Every structure is written in C-alpha cells, then in structure tokens.
C-alpha cells in the first residue's frame, strides 16, 4: 500500500487543479488537508507494520515494486518504493507536519479568490506527492523524479503571487540555482552507474560495501569520491548550502506556509536525506565527508552572522534554516548520520512552528514583515507569542526541549570524532543562533509597538491583496491566529517540546532509541560486521575516549553557550536597545556587510549572470543564431536564386534555340555511340 502515500496527495492535486476554481474554498481546503491526513494515516499504519516486522539481518524494510520503468540494456529501474526506518521517519514528518501546514493554510490563505486558493492547494498537494516519492524511492532515478518535482513545486509556490515581479524573480532564481545543483546530481548518478552498473540504493550499498575501506587510502576510490562530491553539489543546491544557498532567502517571497513546509521542514532536507540514504557510499569516500562537514559548518556560521542583522522576520528565519541545515550536513560529514536525521526531525517541528508563527504575526498585521515596525505584540497575540517562544527556546538548544538533544548529539559526535576545530565553529554558530533568535523574539513581541520604517515593503503585496494602508496602527484590531492556524501552532509547539525525547543519549540515562531505530538504514544489507561504517567504529571508540564524563561536560558547556547568547540578546535588544544602534553605528562597515548578505548575490550576478547574458545575446544570439544559422539558410536561398537567375536565361522562348540545344544533344549522343 505504499503507493497510496504519494498517490493521495497527487489525486488532491489533480482535483484541485482541474476543477478547483469551481469549488468553494472550504471544499478545496478540506480536500487538500484531507488527503494529507489520509496519507499520514496510511504512513502511520505502514510504519507500524514495519516496526512489527522481524528484522532480517538486523534490517527491516517493506519494499514494493510496481512496474519496470526504465529498461535499457543493463539498466533496469523498476518504479519501486522502499520503506525502511529512515524513510519511515521522513514520511511521517512530511505527512504529519504537512497536514498541519495544510490546515494552517486554510485560514492563512483565506483572503485569496477561490481560483487562487485552489491553485495554492493543488501546488501544495503536488509538492507533498513529489516529496514522498523522493523519500520512498528505492533507486536514484525514482528519487530524482521527486527531486526534480519538488524543485518544480518550489518554483510554482515561491512565485505563487507571480504578478509581483520580485516573487516571480525569486521563483526563477530558485529553480535555476537548483538546476545547477541538479546538474551535479545527474553527473553523480551517471558516475555511479558507470562504476557500479546499478542505481538501486541497496545494490549500490552492497557493491560499495565490498570495497576496501582502508583508512590509509584516505581519498577513497576516485570514482566514488567524484560521484559523491557531485551528489553533494546537488545537495547544496537543494538544501541551500554554500555556494548555492542564495535562492532560499529570496524564496521568502512565497506565502508563509510554503516557507514553513518547503523551506524548513521538508524540501530543503532532501539533500540531507540523500546523504543519509547513501550513507554507505559516503562512508567509503572520506574526502567527500570532510568536504561535507566543512561546508556545513561554514555555512552554519556564515548564515548565522547574516541572520543577526536582518530586519525581515522571514529572512531571519530563512537564514536560520540555512544555518541549521549546515548543522545537519556537519553531522553527516562526521559520520553521525543518525544525528543528522535526528536534527532534521526536530528542526522540522520548531522551524515549521517558527515560520507559522511569523505567518500569524504577518497575518495579524495585515502584511507587515519588517520587525522594526513590530513590538509589544505579546499582549495582543498570546497564542502566537507563546508558541513562538517555545520554538525559539527549542532552536536555541535549551534542555529539555527538542533542539537541545539533537543539536547536542551533533556537537558531541563532532567533537568525539576528532573534529575539534569544526566543533568550535559549530559552538560559535550555536551561540549566534541563540542570539539572533531571541533578538527576533524580543523585537517582535516585546517592548512597545514601533513604526521605525515607513512604508515597509512587506506591507501590501506580500499578502497578495493590496492593502491601502500599510500596517495597522497601534492597538487597532489585532486578532490572534484564527482556529486552524492556532491548532497547527499548538500541535507543533507540543512537538517541539516532546520530540527530542526519542533521542535522549545514554549519558543522560536515555536509550537513544532514534539512533538505534535509524542505524540499520545506514548499513548495507548483509554487510553487518565488517562494513559497519566508520560511523559506529569511531563513535564507539571515542566514546571510550572521553567517556561519559566528557560528553556530559560538553553538554553543559553548550547549554551555557546558548544561555549566554540569550543573555546577550536580552541585554542588547530588550533592556537597552540603544546598544544595538550604537554598535551598528560603530561597526558600520561590518553591519553593512552583514546586512548586505556579504554581497554574495551581487558577486554571482557580476561574475556569472552578466557574462552569461552577454555571451548569450552578443555571441550566441547575434553571432550564431542570426549570423550563422539564418545566414546559412538565407544563403542557400540566395545561392539558389542566383543560379536560377543564370539558368533561366536558357528559356529564351525561341524555338530555334531549343532546336539548337536538341541538336547539340543529338550530335553528341550520335557521336558517342558511333565512337563505341
């Protein structure tokens, strides 16, 4: 029954796309949310079945193959879904949080017309369908269907309000940058097929597991390293890491629930999932793993610094997402695959919560998004405030909320696998995370309502309906989140509190069930003992290294760091806001650099976009297309015309001339035959 999981949302898409504009909003929304809930139900049942299965070689999986999709020579790809611990977690996250976000959207998007409403939900359902295909696929091509599909839906949804130029630009940017990553992904796939002759995940894992994993051969097999690097390039595109992260902040042009679902909880995690799915491959390419870890942690720090000074509530969250994804990649890079997925799962809860909360704020303020125009909202929007606060605490990594356990797991595994420098950078990033998230909380909800920025651009267009007056005046009718939105917020808040408890590490007395649950997914079947990746080995070994005491100590340390960040934020942004302004003034250059996002977009534009445009229009268009091709075609015509102008003079109309030509022929032929 696995196919039902993506099929139901797909049916929802078809219905809403085809007849949506004739359905009332209630029906459209109910349909879309309903199929998601149904999908979640089936997913839950499937996972229940899975858990009840007896493990084979320590591995539990449900695999269903539907028909042979690609059959070309030695390449046989069936359309097959595989539910194992890893994909079951992903499926539950996608359908569960997806359902909540659909529910939220029914209220959030209510100001749209019926047709637009239906269009929104059709896209959202389509996205869910593709994402589910991505995680359920049992081979690279099937995953790639989902990979491309979510990219498409991301474009459609970012540019949902396509009449607004910035939105359609953002959509295009997302798609194109993703494409660059996808190029790497495809090349990686091809390399793997070329080297190993198969693209099925299990078969690949088995084959790769047979390769010697000699630590002395640090670079690993060259082909594998190259392939995994290319796949990682695809992951940087999809999951917004350096250097292909630039689309994610712009993607905030889309409706907030979209940002919550796609750009926090699910699509951007596809890259992380991909690495987790191919853990065996990556384990045998240590060089790639190093790159992954370094890129991840650098991105985390990089994005964190930018998030510190951004003024749009969604942009801050966007950069926060980039930063947290960096954490996940760091985890994958040091071999803590389970840790990375664990963080993915907890992050889905609190990031979605934060985005939905910001959406509630924007909704209440009728489109205002600039935090300099906010403040004091906690009195007017209590539900929003409390849930948002829970999300903020969670992301800062304060125990016992979810973010603490997952983030800490990553930090511990980084430290204990001898990546102390990376660990230090990660700790700094954690500090920044706490700081800027609490900054966001304070500036939005505490203090007095400000109107610092006139005509905040987010005011009118962001919500789709042009708003005559920007922002609402103080104490005017600010309504808190309506029913469906509130429900989603509350459920996610509960999740943010409780989700972490499946991963309580041993040192605190827990059983770390999630790691045990996920671990078989990161192994090749049958290769239990000797191919147990460097993951387990190093983790176990170095757990001996420092022992429980060290782990506990580090845990304490990171909590203190988070608390310090909160403290700094409290002082600077809550108690004495003038410090912030003074610092901005004193470090004006740095401030501008951060505010301008390190001018990366401008850099890309100058070095890549403009040259391509010039080459395309100047050389390729004018030179090749107009000059060469048109020239050739026209030239042929001209030649024909020229020749025919010459030849047609033979048609003199004079009989005598014709007779003459006759006769010439006769003489020639007669002569020829007589000669012979």
């Amino acid at each position, binding site marked *: 029954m696995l196919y039902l999981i993506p099929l139901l949302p797909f049916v929802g898409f078809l219905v809403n796309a085809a007849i949506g504009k004739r359905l009332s909003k209630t029906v459209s929304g109910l349909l879309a949310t309903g199929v998601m809930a149904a999908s979640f139900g089936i997913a839950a049942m499937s996972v229940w079945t899975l858990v009840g299965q007896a493990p084979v070689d320590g591995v539990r999986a449900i695999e269903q193959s539907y028909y042979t999709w690609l059959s070309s020579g030695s390449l046989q790809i069936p359309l097959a879904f595989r539910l194992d611990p890893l994909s079951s977690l992903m499926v539950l996250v996608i359908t569960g949080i997806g359902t909540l976000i659909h529910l939220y959207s029914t209220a959030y998007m209510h100001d749209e017309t019926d047709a637009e409403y239906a269009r929104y939900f059709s896209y959202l359902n389509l996205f869910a369908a593709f994402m589910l295909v991505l995680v359920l696929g049992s081979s690279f091509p099937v995953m790639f269907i989902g990979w491309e599909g979510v990219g498409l839906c991301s474009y459609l949804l970012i540019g949902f309000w396509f009449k607004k130029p910035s939105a359609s630009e953002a959509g295009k940017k997302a798609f194109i940058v993703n494409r660059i990553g996808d190029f790497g992904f495809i090349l990686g796939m091809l390399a793997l097929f070329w080297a190993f002759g198969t693209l099925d995940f299990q078969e690949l894992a088995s084959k790769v597991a047979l390769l010697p994993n000699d630590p002395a051969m640090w670079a690993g097999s060259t082909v594998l390293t190259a392939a995994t690097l290319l796949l990682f390039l695809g992951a940087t595109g999809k999951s917004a890491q350096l250097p292909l992260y630039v689309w994610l902040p712009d993607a905030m042009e889309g409706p907030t629930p979209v940002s919550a679902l796609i750009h926090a909880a699910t699509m951007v995690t596809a890259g992380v999932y991909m690495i987790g799915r191919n853990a065996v491959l990556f384990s045998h390419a240590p060089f790639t793993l190093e790159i992954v870890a370094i890129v991840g942690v650098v991105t985390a720090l990089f994005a964190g610094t930018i998030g510190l000074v951004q003024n749009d509530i969604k942009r801050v969250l966007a950069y926060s997402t980039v930063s947290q994804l960096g954490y996940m990649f760091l985890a994958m890079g040091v071999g803590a695959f389970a840790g990375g997925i664990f963080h993915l799962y907890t992050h889905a809860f609190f990031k979605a919560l934060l985005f939905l909360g910001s959406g509630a704020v924007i909704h209440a303020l009728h489109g205002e998004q600039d935090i300099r125009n906010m403040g004091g909202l906690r009195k007017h929007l209590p539900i929003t405030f409390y849930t948002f606060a829970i999300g903020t605490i969670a992301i800062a990594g304060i125990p016992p909320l979810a973010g603490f356990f997952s983030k800490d797991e990553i930090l511990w595994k980084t430290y204990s696998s001898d990546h102390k420098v990376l660990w230090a950078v990660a700790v700094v990033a954690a500090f920044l995370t706490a700081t800027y998230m609490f900054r966001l909380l304070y500036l939005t909800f505490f203090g007095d309502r400000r109107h610092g920025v006139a005509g905040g651009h987010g005011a009118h267009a962001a919500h789709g309906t042009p708003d005559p007056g920007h922002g609402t005046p103080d104490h005017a009718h600010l309504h808190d989140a309506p029913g469906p939105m509130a429900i989603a917020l509350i459920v996610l808040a509960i999740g943010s509190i409780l989700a972490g408890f499946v991963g309580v590490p041993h040192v605190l007395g827990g059983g770390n069930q999630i790691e045990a649950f996920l671990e078989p997914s990161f192994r090749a079947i049958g290769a239990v003992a000797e191919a147990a990746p460097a993951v387990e080995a190093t983790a176990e070994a170095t757990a001996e290294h420092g022992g429980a005491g060290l782990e506990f100590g580090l845990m304490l340390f990171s909590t203190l760091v988070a608390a310090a960040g909160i403290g700094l934020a409290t002082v600077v942004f809550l108690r004495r806001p003038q410090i912030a302004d003074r610092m901005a003034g004193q470090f004006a250059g740095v401030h501008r650099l951060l505010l301008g996002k390190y001018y990366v977009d401008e850099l890309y534009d100058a070095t890549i976009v403009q040259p391509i445009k010039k080459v395309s229009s100047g050389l390729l268009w004018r030179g090749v297309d107009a000059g060469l091709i048109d020239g050739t075609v026209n030239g042929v015509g001209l030649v024909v015309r020229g020749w025919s102008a010459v030849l*047609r*003079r033979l*048609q*003199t*109309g*004079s*009989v*005598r001339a014709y*007779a*003459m030509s006759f*006769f010439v022929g006769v003489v020639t032929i007669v002569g020829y035959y007589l000669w012979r």
Partner: protein
Amino acid sequence: MLPEPTLNSYLMLSAVLFAIGTAGVFLRRNIITILLSVEVMLNAVNLTFIAVDRFRGLVDGQIMVFFVITVAAAEAAVGLAIVIALFRHKETLTPDVFTSLKW
C-alpha cells in the same frame, strides 16, 4: 567508269541530305522554309530505309516509309495551321519574334 554505288554511297547520300536539312533549320529565318527543311530531313531518312531494305531483301523498310510519309503529311497540315494562326497574330513569319514562352 563511275564506281558502283554501294550501300555506303546511299547511306552517305542520306547523311548529306540530313545535314543539309538540319542546316536549313538553323539558317533560315522563315518558318515555312524551316518546315521545308524538316521535310528534307525526313526524306533523307526515307532513303536510308529503302536502301537498307534493298540490301536486306526485306519489305519492312518500305512500309516504314509509308508511315513516315503519312505522318509527315499530318505534321505538315498541323504545322501549317499553326503557322497561319501565328501569322494572324503577329503578321510576320520570323520565328525569333515568338518568344512568349520565355522566362
């Protein structure tokens, strides 16, 4: 005395006649004279047929000649009709002025 005429002589005579006829077609500027030259050519061919007939002892050549003459008659009739029509149109018999079928 004069040499006996061989088959070759007849054939050569016929060739000469044919050449004369062709020359006439090219040289003359009067349509009727051109038609007459064509008749000359046809007769040259007739001579060939009869000569070979005699040489072979067959009678088929003469039958060919009948047909040639018949067709020549038909052709002359139609050709002259066309000449008359052309003459009515342009009041001249020079073939070179009738150039409507040109490019």
